[in-house]
């Protein structure tokens, strides 16, 4: 180690209180001291660099978004031209709520059951290891690829629609729910499962009434984060929901909008009115996503089991 062949001095007071006072009075060479100071400065600078975009994003989204957000924006569909002012993204909001809602209803029970299998039944066997590994892999699959898959498998025969968007979002959510739920189920102590068995409960009863309730806050955190992720997804919806400027609640056979799709359109238009709506839409979407993220934090902090 470089430190060892320095001057052999021990300054000892730095950082750790373990060797306080300093046994030897000789200090490290100025070169070593300065490299320490420079490194500290660089680390501090990286924090400032990383915080800068956070401030800039939130400042501009709020400034530009609040200027356009009003009751009309929250309750009206956009006008037929990007040039015209007024109107809003209520069609996108309806689409987002429908598709994320359906995707959640499918992926959450499936994901939780899969996690139960991994922890309570599979353990370390081959199938469980494969599921674990490929769920991890699936969380890294580009969401646009999921969109292409749903397009080829479902949109080609059945047409664009809310249901297709929901299928894509549920495929994106499933591995997130599986892996986060599994992590929480693993934390449930064996003792309380044994206590349940000792009282004569069957395995399914133990899982449904002891294991899942104990892990509920943690599972909720994972689910809410998955919902937040799905609500912000754009690319897969281009290929499945397609987007629309009219209000629709049809499940199938009719293109439907979503907040991210409407924002994407607004961001690409050269007209100020369309761009202004995109900012307000971004504020609306960010608000939805942040609410779910914050709820996830609250749920996590209420969790009584932890590592």
């Amino acid at each position, binding site marked *: 180690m470089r430190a060892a062949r320095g001057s052999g001095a021990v300054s000892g007071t730095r950082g750790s209180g373990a060797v306080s006072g300093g046994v030897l009075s000789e200090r490290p060479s100025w070169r070593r001291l300065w490299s320490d100071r420079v490194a500290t400065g660089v680390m501090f600078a990286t924090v400032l660099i990383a915080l800068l975009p956070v401030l800039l*994003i939130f400042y*501009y989204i709020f400034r530009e978004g609040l200027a356009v957000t009003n009751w009309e924006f929250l309750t009206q569909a956009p006008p037929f031209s990007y040039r015209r002012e007024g109107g809003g993204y209520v069609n996108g909001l309806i689409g987002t709520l429908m598709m994320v809602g359906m995707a959640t209803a499918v992926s959450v029970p499936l994901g939780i059951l899969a996690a139960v299998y991994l922890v309570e*039944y599979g353990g370390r066997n081959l199938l469980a290891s494969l599921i674990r590994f490929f769920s991890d892999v699936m969380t890294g699959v580009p969401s646009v690829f999921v969109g292409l898959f749903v397009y080829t498998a479902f949109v080609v025969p059945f047409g664009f629609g809310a249901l297709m968007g929901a299928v894509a979002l549920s495929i994106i959510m499933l591995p997130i729910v599986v892996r986060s739920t599994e992590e929480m189920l693993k934390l449930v102590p064996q003792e309380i499962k044994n206590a349940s068995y000792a009282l*004569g409960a069957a395995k399914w*009863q133990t899982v449904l009434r002891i294991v899942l309730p104990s892990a509920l806050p943690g599972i909720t955190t994972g689910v809410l984060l998955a919902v937040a992720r799905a609500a912000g997804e754009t690319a897969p919806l281009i290929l499945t929901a397609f987007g629309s400027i009219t209000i629709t609640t049809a499940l199938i056979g009719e293109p439907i909008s979503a907040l991210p799709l409407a924002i994407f359109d607004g961001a690409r238009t050269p007209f100020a009115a369309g761009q202004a709506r995109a900012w307000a839409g971004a504020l609306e979407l960010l608000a939805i996503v942040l609410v779910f993220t914050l709820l996830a934090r609250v749920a996590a902090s209420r969790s*009584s089991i932890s590592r």
Partner: protein
Amino acid sequence: MIHGVRGDEISAGGGIGGGSVRSPADPRDERPPSLSALARRRGFGRALDRLFGWTAAVSGTLVLLILAYMVLTTTNTALPVFTSEGISFVTGTEWLPSRGVYGILPFIYGTLVTSIIAVVIAVPISLGVSLYLTELAPSWIKGPIAYAVDLLAAVPSVVYGLWGVFVLLPLFLQPAAEALSSVFGFLPIFKAPATGLSYFGAGVVLAIMIIPIISALAREVFRAVPDDDRLAAYALGATRWEMIWEAVIPRSRPGLVGATMLGLGRALGETIAVALLVGSRPTISASIVQPGYSMAAVIANQFPEADATGIRALVGVGVVLFAITIVINMAARLFVWRLVAER
């Protein structure tokens, strides 16, 4: 304590068939059920137990089936384009859907270049932030900073795209690209004419998007370094930076490689922000301050107007993108898993 679990929720007799909970009002009523009652219930209970186990197993297997089905369907759809274009699908530099020429090398190139720029920018910043948070920061400021950086992960990519185009482009990307090319213009990678809507512009926004991913993992990795190692370095007379460099970093290397690769995987597949910022020109340019294209971006941008063959070609682009990200992600997982196994 575990909440949500009360003793009286588990009925003594097994409570099979709806899991009835007996009232604990009179403890003298709590007799164990007779053996014959247990035997009668056991057949039904066992079936129910097996059914539950099977349902869970099927749900788990579904993950594998979906993944396999995704690969098969998309590959099958793209197969005509793969066979008609042959190897020139991935080596061809011409993308002319109107003439039926599909060479996707410009997109592969753009995806790799933008992602590498993102990683080159994001890794030092993320490591600096994580080291600051684990080694330097006073405890009162750790929470707020970690929270603020994590907030970046919650912002949807379309919001990054919107903000990137209307705020970051005039504020930073355009001037920075021009400055880079006027100072380092003699290098091919910064050759003029420079524009913010370029590999560089997309790379910077991607970097902002993957900083929270890399820094969250790096924080975990640094935290896992035993304090004994830190104290040992201090005891040998190391300054704080020497302690970090000699004790913390070497221990963390595999985990940091894994974190970087997960960030890279995310950058490779990112679609909307890149589609808005990369400049959308299907050419290969050595200069990173000139416009290009990426695989995910071309799918999102050209899908609405593509004809039947064009869509097959775009699906083919998706299959190649999937293959690249899968390799990166599997490698990253293996790194991270090895680290966990070592602990």
